[in-house]
């Protein structure tokens, strides 16, 4: 799977999303449940949560301002520990490098811990073409992989749209599972199957939540412990990270990991925080013999220094997705990208281009719920707005009818005379469409409004007329 997850048009995807009642109720339930838990462990339990947010923002901004320094420091320390570092400018370069490792090792079996960046570069597709068996070991990802590579609905809870009965059916079909849909039994089946995969794997591939520049370490946050096994058992390990996912020291990592787990799933900590530094050393009992760190740019350098730089502060907690009222009704697949919700609507056009994703910045009411909840204070709704400005003013990709309408608006709204005439004649102009005090079948752009709602008929006496007459003593 690559970043793009659908060939359908935006409207078609939205239509499917809206008509998927099961998915919608799962999303609403998850948003409400995770939202409640997040509130408990952030603003309720930590009186100074705002200070945390300020600190989180400060850490991320500092790293981005000195990214070249920290990337170099990280690379040096990984190399010093005997690891190999590869800096990939493009997704193709990243895949080529990983392919070369796979070929050299003559690897046939790969296990993976959950990673968004490997989805972004389409790594699994390449590995499968190379004849490798690739197994996702995060339970949610594993279910989706078995279910004919169904795309993730969410960056933290990828299989949010599957219930236990559906999972049982997938397991029955693909694994010969014969037991019930009890979550414990399903998890047990996954555990048995995956344990074999861990033991057989030639290569383990992980993403990276935060790399620690000072030591050349990297951390992974999971609730299942699968990242421990991916990094402990196979002889070769490859870690793939977006180039911005660095912290200077363990001190900052501790702050951000805590903010990540609280914001993502409303937990003070997840069950496992895996931290690893380079390949196995002489006295180590486990760990890889060979370690590769692939640092992926894939468009991030272009974002750096642009008006969108703050999006690189993201720690992938998905809190913005969990509060988004648009995501709530259309779900993750409607975004057409592995990155859905507000973060996806900002990031996908940057990484994948406006031709592919120009509708996403408009799939928002600019209500600001995302900005309010973001633990590292990314002004998400402002960035969505910035995309709109770019689409209109730099790219010229706005529809012609809209451009004409907005030009007319510009003229009318800026001229008190035109504005006054326009508002004065509005009742007469709207008269053919008006019945009583409402318009039920509006013309032009109003049609989309009145397809759903009544629109008020313009007042015969405008407020300004009333005020003027009143001053004259008529009222």
């Amino acid at each position, binding site marked *: 799977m690559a970043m793009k997850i659908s060939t359908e048009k935006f409207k078609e995807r939205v239509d499917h999303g809206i008509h998927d009642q099961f998915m919608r109720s799962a999303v609403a339930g998850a948003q409400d449940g995770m939202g409640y838990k997040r509130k408990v462990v952030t603003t309720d339990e930590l009186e100074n949560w705002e200070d945390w947010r300020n600190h989180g923002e400060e850490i991320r901004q500092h790293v981005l301002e000195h990214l070249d320094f920290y990337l170099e420091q990280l690379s040096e320390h990984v190399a010093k520990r005997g690891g190999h570092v590869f800096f990939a400018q493009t997704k193709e370069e990243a895949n080529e490098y990983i392919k070369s490792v796979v070929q050299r090792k003559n690897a046939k079996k790969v296990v993976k811990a959950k990673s968004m960046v490997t989805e972004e570069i389409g790594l699994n597709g390449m590995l499968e073409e190379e004849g490798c068996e690739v197994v996702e070991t995060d339970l949610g990802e594993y279910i989706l992989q078995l279910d004919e590579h169904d795309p993730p609905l969410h960056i933290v809870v990828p299989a949010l749209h599957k219930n236990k009965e559906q999972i049982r059916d997938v397991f029955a079909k693909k694994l010969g599972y014969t037991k019930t849909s009890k979550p414990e039994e399903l998890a047990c089946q996954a555990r048995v199957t995956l344990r074999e995969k861990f033991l057989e794997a030639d290569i383990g591939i992980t993403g990276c939540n935060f790399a620690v520049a000072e030591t050349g370490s990297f951390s992974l946050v999971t609730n299942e412990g699968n990242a421990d096994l991916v990094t402990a058992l196979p002889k070769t390990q490859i870690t793939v990270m977006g180039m911005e996912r660095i912290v200077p020291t363990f001190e900052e990592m501790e702050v951000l990991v805590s903010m990540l787990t609280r914001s993502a799933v409303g937990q003070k900590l997840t069950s496992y925080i895996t931290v690893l530094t380079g390949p196995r050393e002489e006295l180590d009992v486990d760990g890889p013999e060979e370690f590769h760190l692939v640092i992926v740019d894939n468009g991030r350098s272009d974002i750096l220094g642009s008006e969108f730089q703050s999006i690189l502060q993201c720690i992938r907690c998905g809190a913005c997705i969990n509060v988004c009222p648009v995501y709530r009704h259309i779900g993750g697949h409607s975004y057409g990208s592995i990155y859905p919700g507000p973060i996806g609507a900002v990031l996908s056009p940057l990484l994948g281009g406006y031709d592919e994703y120009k509708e996403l910045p408009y799939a928002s009411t600019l*209500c600001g719920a995302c900005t309010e909840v973001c633990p590292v204070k990314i002004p998400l709704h402002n960035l969505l707005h910035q995309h709109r400005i770019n689409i209109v003013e730099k790219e010229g990709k706005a529809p012609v009818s809209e451009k004409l309408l907005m030009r007319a608006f510009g003229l009318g709204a800026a001229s008190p005379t035109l504005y006054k005439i326009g508002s004065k004649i509005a009742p007469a102009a709207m008269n053919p469409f008006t019945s009583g005090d409402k318009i039920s079948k509006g013309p032009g752009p109003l049609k989309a409004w009145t397809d759903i709602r009544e629109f008020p008929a313009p007042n015969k006496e405008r407020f300004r007329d009333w005020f003027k007459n009143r001053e004259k003593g008529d009222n």
Partner: protein
Amino acid sequence: MKVTLFATCIVDMFQSNVGKATVELLERLGCEVEFPESQVCCGQPAYNSGYVKESKEAMKKMIETFSDAEYVVSPSGSCAFMFHEYPHIFAGDPVWEPKAKQLAEKTYELTQFIVGVLKIEDVGARFEGTATYHTSCHMTRLLGVKEPPMILLKNVKGLKFTELPGKEQCCGFGGTFSVKNAQISEQMVDEKVGHVEETGAEYLIGADGACLMNIGGRMERLGKPVKVLHIAEVLNSH
């Protein structure tokens, strides 16, 4: 105290009752209200759609219109917030940035002005009925006005108040979003209407005409009996 009213185009053209109530309320609270005729739209519809160039001319007109005002008060959190955005929009412009800043500093949403500047928490209103309140996103999140409407409503005699479930969720208006992404907007407003119904309230009160037009318009289409009122109308009842 002299107050210059920024009525907003929605109130001027579609909700003149709200404008009247705002004027009468402010006068009852001891203010002298003026309404400069040259006011136009604040530019938000075009600006939020990405048309900065087209909206800037309207903004300049508004800055000039209100340049002599002592206090600018608006019965809309969203439109008042737009004035607060002007300094960012004109950032770096040696002529307009300082003027925009001046305007932003003296602009208040109606309830924010009553509670924060006039220091009045009980406007002496009486309104019989059960009501719930819709918290508009721009007013609460962007302008940061959360408490004032609740403080004022709490002191309205006769008003029985029920909190709206899911009140932090957007109603699905979003300016041009409501027509550009009408299908999504419909789902959002339907959930909001459902929540309003759950409260069993007779009235839905709000402080932003646009949200009320959206929720009210949908409730009317669906034949729901809930009546929609702007907070100025409630506070002006006595």
